[in-house]
């Protein structure tokens, strides 16, 4: 998988309120956080993690990392992610919400050209239950299991994870692609990671109105020869058109992204769509695996 027990993690923005709080929770979960960065706070420690002024110093002093989790505030996040990219960190989880669109677009575009994986921005991150957590999800709702979850929203994916966990199916891995209009990963790319993951047997796609990520995934999925079965849930059936529902991504416009279009595309590709989150486990079980 994209990350595991041995993934060495850097936390950027570690001394901030959120950064420090979630560093503690990640450490408790077993995540191997080897260093933190906050400009101007070099030399201090946060929950026992050494803090450096720059990514370069953090890498030099700790022998390198595999991933970074970014909690840096929106106005400085572009620069922080660029710093991680230019220091050759290959996986960057950007929790930060509210990054200016053009900066988000630029850094995501550039990272992709450089072969760097960005999860987010505006994501709860990713979790491999029982192994590691790079993000902010409440880990106690993620029991190890066989279902991979990919989601555009944060809290809604916790709900899904909880339904899977209490149903006994459990979660093999969960990745929040992020709620912004531009994200480092789309459902196709995340699904391809899941195909490679031996622990994953089923996949749940948690979508929402706006954009055409779900439609593009449906099309891609229907063309695949080998697949792991997918069940979807789409939020926003009751939302009005042309209104932005919180997430910048969740606006229906350009003739794209309404609930019906997504459900139609998914259903026609053979992906059952749950009417409510609590129906997901039974739909999965109904796939007869």
């Amino acid at each position: 998988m994209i990350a595991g027990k041995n993934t060495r993690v850097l936390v950027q923005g570690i001394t901030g309120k959120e950064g420090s709080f979630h560093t503690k929770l990640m450490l408790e979960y077993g995540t191997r956080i080897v260093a933190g960065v906050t400009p101007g706070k070099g030399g201090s420690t946060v929950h026992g993690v050494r803090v450096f002024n720059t990514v370069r110093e953090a890498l030099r002093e700790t022998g390198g990392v595999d991933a970074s989790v970014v909690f840096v505030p929106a106005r400085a996040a572009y620069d922080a992610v660029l710093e991680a990219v230019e220091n050759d960190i290959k996986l960057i989880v950007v929790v930060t919400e509210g990054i200016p669109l053009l900066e988000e677009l630029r850094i995501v575009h550039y990272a992709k050209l450089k072969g760097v994986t960005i999860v987010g921005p505006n994501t709860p991150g990713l979790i491999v239950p029982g192994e590691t957590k790079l993000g902010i999800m409440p880990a106690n709702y993620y029991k190890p299991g066989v279902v991979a979850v990919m989601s555009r929203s944060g809290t809604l994916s916790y709900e899904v994870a909880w339904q899977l966990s209490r149903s006994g199916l459990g979660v093999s891995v969960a990745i929040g692609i992020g709620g912004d209009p531009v994200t480092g990963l789309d459902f196709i790319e995340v699904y391809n990671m899941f195909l490679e993951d031996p622990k994953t047997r089923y996949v749940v796609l948690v979508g929402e109105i706006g954009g055409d990520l779900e439609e593009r995934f449906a099309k891609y999925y229907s063309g695949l020869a080998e697949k792991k079965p997918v069940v979807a849930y789409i939020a926003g059936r009751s939302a009005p058109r042309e209104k932005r529902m919180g997430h910048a991504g969740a606006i229906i416009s350009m003739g794209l992204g309404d609930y019906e279009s997504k459900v139609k595309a998914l259903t026609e590709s053979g992906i059952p769509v749950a009417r409510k989150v609590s129906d997901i486990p039974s739909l999965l079980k109904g796939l007869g695996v």
Partner: protein
Amino acid sequence: MRLLEYEAKEIFRRYGIRTPEGVVCRTPQEAREAVAKLGSSVIKAQVPVGGRGLAGGVKFAESPDEAYRLAGEMLSKEIKGSRVELLLVEKKVCVSRELYLSLTVDRASRSLVYIASKIGGVEIEELARKNPESLVKLNTNPYIGFSPYIARTIASFIGLPAEAWGEVERILAGLYRIMVDYDAELVEINPLAVDCSGSLIALDAKILVDDNSLFRHPDLEKLKYRELTSEERSAREKGFTYVSLDGYIGVIGNGAGLTMATMDLIEYYGGKPANFLDVWSGGGASRDRVKEAVRLLLENPRVRVVLVNIFGGMTRCDEVALGVKQAIEETGSKKPVVVRLMGTNQEEGVRILREAGLLVYEDVDEAVRRAVEISRGGGV
């Protein structure tokens, strides 16, 4: 945030994009004077919504008196929920052809994309559906934006003569500079006209500014709530993401997806949501924010019951519980409140709410069913 046409055109002119001669008017009398000066004109309602033409927001006036009459009608209107307070009166342009040009973000390729069409004046969604062959889309690296080949490719596709290529280049370069300088999500000219002398002129102008970038544009930031209803505006001013709906069950959630899913579940169980309210704002939902959110709904007369659905990640349940409790205490409202609470410090949150005598659920379906029952007159 969407700029008004006249604001967008002011910007266009500053970036070398030609627009018709025009005057912004607030009264029928001003419109009369404008047409007396400009001659045959078009009068356009300045509202931050699309599709105003069909809604009577665009009219032609041949004489000052006609302008006076039409302006009076328009200024008494509301278009898609927006009161018409300003008109743009523009000299009529002799048009030989109408085109479409825009620059926006392409989500799929994570690029900027220039879109051009041989057909203008039609909404791009409709064009994409009905005349896809009239369209060309050119992705461009967001660090590079414009380069002259883009202008040649578009001009050549549209079939403009080589003499016009320089003008196309200036306009497309302008769109990119506007996008960067104003942090726009979309800069659109629809229609872009070829006038009777063969020159290009922007008959309409649309600029959507990225809300996340408004901190860099203090002059625009103060306009940001203008397209909202007054109910939405007061919620946004408190820092919530809020959308008014026409139902009667007040909804508070944390996270946009979860809040939408809660609305969907209300409909599934036969109820109608009164609103979308996401208390989340980056750093999680603090006690005061929850309190303000609950107050807002308790004080909304359309709301029969308040449903709070919190699944905590960054959000701590004990803080949420205290916020709910204080809102009820401070307003003294007797309106029923149903709470679904999961997450960090859940036990403590549940305890606080139970002690305050509120309905608390762990299962979201149960909570929603209960709220719908109550809204139909079922007891608390």
